């Protein structure tokens, strides 16, 4: 086994937390059951890793086996990357999409290999009709760097692909071209949507964040919402409070629904607008050029945070449509200009 491959596998296994190790090794399906049984996973991690490397050498692990292990690790640790969303479209009057996985893989690999002599391309199909692609980039003269790969998750027979944000931005156009041509599309465009949470991006892009539908069969009883009011308050105060609180609850429920919101970490607004003020004769109002500023909202769970603003009394209901349109418009990067 090549030294670089051994080192690569070693570093990948070292990244895996001990409690996930057996699951990931089983998913990799490279080492046999018998081999895995010889390993004592209760040892110190370094010893376990050494034993595993030894077994991989016995089985002569190749670079593609190592790359596959890396894909599986990334599938378990998706949040370590920030994912961009790309949308492709077909030209007018193009044929129906007869997607052939073998053809796609061959075509994709060929395009990249023709452009850059040195590139490692690996594929792993998932059960949800998605294919994970891992690309390690080299140049005409240097070997591929296995430690800075780009990952692409493509949902076949849809126009959407998710790409991990990479520092090596110069390869993005080539990657886009390979994906477009191999999947028989015409054009690829980057959407203004980005997050660490691949599942949430998928839910937003495919409009599947709410899977409850009203039917005549469902008999969901009206749930009593506890408004969290202090019972010991003066009963007259409670009445006034209730009316407003109910209004806020209703509007929040209409805007955000009862389902869990997809998880995003931020929303960014780039404003290029002229200053608007009620006061006449202010210096800023006279300024002809638009002002430029950047507003960024951050949160561990932005949409749930926005949903709780009005009920918590921090903001008025209804919230600004610029905030509430995020899942619907499938954007969390906005550019706002004067019309």
């Amino acid at each position: 086994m090549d030294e670089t491959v051994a080192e690569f596998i070693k570093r990948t296994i070292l990244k895996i937390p001990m409690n996930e190790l057996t699951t990931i090794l089983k998913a990799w399906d490279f080492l046999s059951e018998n081999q895995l049984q010889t390993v004592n996973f209760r040892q110190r991690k370094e010893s376990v890793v050494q034993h595993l490397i030894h077994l991989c050498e016995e089985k002569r692990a190749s670079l593609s086996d190592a790359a596959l292990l890396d894909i599986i690790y990334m599938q378990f640790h998706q949040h370590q990357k920030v994912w961009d969303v790309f949308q492709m479209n077909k030209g007018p009057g193009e044929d129906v999409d007869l997607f052939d996985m073998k053809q796609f893989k061959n075509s994709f690999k060929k395009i990249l290999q023709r452009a850059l002599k040195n590139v490692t391309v690996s594929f792993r199909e998932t059960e949800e009709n998605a294919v994970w692609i891992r690309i390690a980039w080299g140049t005409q003269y240097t070997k591929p760097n296995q430690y800075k790969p780009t990952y692409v998750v493509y949902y076949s027979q849809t126009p959407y692909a998710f790409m991990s944000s990479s520092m090596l931005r110069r390869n993005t156009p080539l990657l886009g071209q390979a994906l477009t041509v191999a999947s028989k599309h015409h054009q690829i465009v980057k959407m203004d949507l980005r997050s660490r949470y691949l599942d949430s991006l998928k839910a937003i892009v495919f409009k599947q964040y709410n899977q409850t539908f009203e039917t005549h069969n469902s008999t969901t009883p009206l749930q009593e919402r506890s408004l969290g009011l202090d019972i010991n308050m003066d009963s007259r105060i409670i009445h006034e409070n209730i009316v407003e609180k109910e209004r806020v609850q209703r509007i929040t429920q209409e805007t955000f629904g009862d389902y869990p919101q997809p998880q995003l970490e931020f929303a960014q607004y780039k404003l290029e607008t002229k200053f608007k003020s009620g006061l006449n004769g202010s210096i800023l109002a006279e300024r002809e050029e638009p002002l430029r500023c950047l507003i960024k909202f951050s949160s561990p769970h932005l949409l749930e945070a926005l949903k709780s603003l009005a009920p918590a009394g921090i903001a008025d209901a209804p919230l600004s449509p610029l905030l509430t349109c995020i899942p619907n418009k499938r954007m969390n990067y906005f550019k706002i200009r004067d019309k």
Partner: protein
Amino acid sequence: MAGILAPGLGVLAHLERLETQVSRSRKQSEELQSVQAQEGALGTKIHKLRRLRDELRAAVRHRRASVKACIANVEPNQTVEINEQEALEEKLGNVKAILQAYHFTGLSGKLTSRGVCVCINTAFEGNLLDSYFVDLVIQKPLRIHHHSVPVFIPLEEIAAKYLQTNIQHFLFSLCEYLNAYSGRKYQADRLQSDFAALLTGPLQRNPLCNLLSFTYKLDPGGQSFPFCARLLYKDLTATLPTDVTVTCQGVEALSTSWEEQRASHETLFCTKPLHQVFASFARKGEKLDMSLVS
């Protein structure tokens, strides 16, 4: 002096006796009078109580009679109410059953607070398959709020073409696509589950089930060469393929009988659903076995 008092003693005593007699009889008569007075008072009291008792009895009787009369009037109303309630419940049950039965038409819907939630129930060859929902918001412009349509069905395209101008066309077009997809998926699933014995390799399929590729043998474990089939469904609203290619693996030039078989298989795949073709292969195989036995 004692002598004068002595004869008087007898008189005084006599007078005393008479006095006590009188006072006694006076007492007695007084007692008698008071007793009589008491008797009289009690007598009047008795009379009063008797009168009161009679009055109350009369009142009770009167009340009972009027209550009976009331019940006699009220009972028919109460039974009417109960009957109405049962009738309403029955009607409600009927309506609910009809609404559920609408699922069998393939297209049903329920009004929501902001629009309508449409339910598309797909079927193929009389088998009820998956259901899909589209929740529409009735606003200008009409828009899809959320849905459970699979991501590879071109919902956005269909909506772009028809949703704003002709909602009927939008729904029927979507029904066509979903029913055809369900039908193709059903055929592929049936092939994989029921006829795995005749396949010599895994079935290659894509999400829309519009490109199927597989190798099969008519006599598994036998000497014959396997066939390779490639089915293309270019019409996404159809459940039968538009292009079929069947080749024979490992044979350069086919004998006429193999060529005939190959061509007939191509025709079969074009005209009959996939699992039915394989069912006929399985039956032919059984016939061959029978002939070998006899």
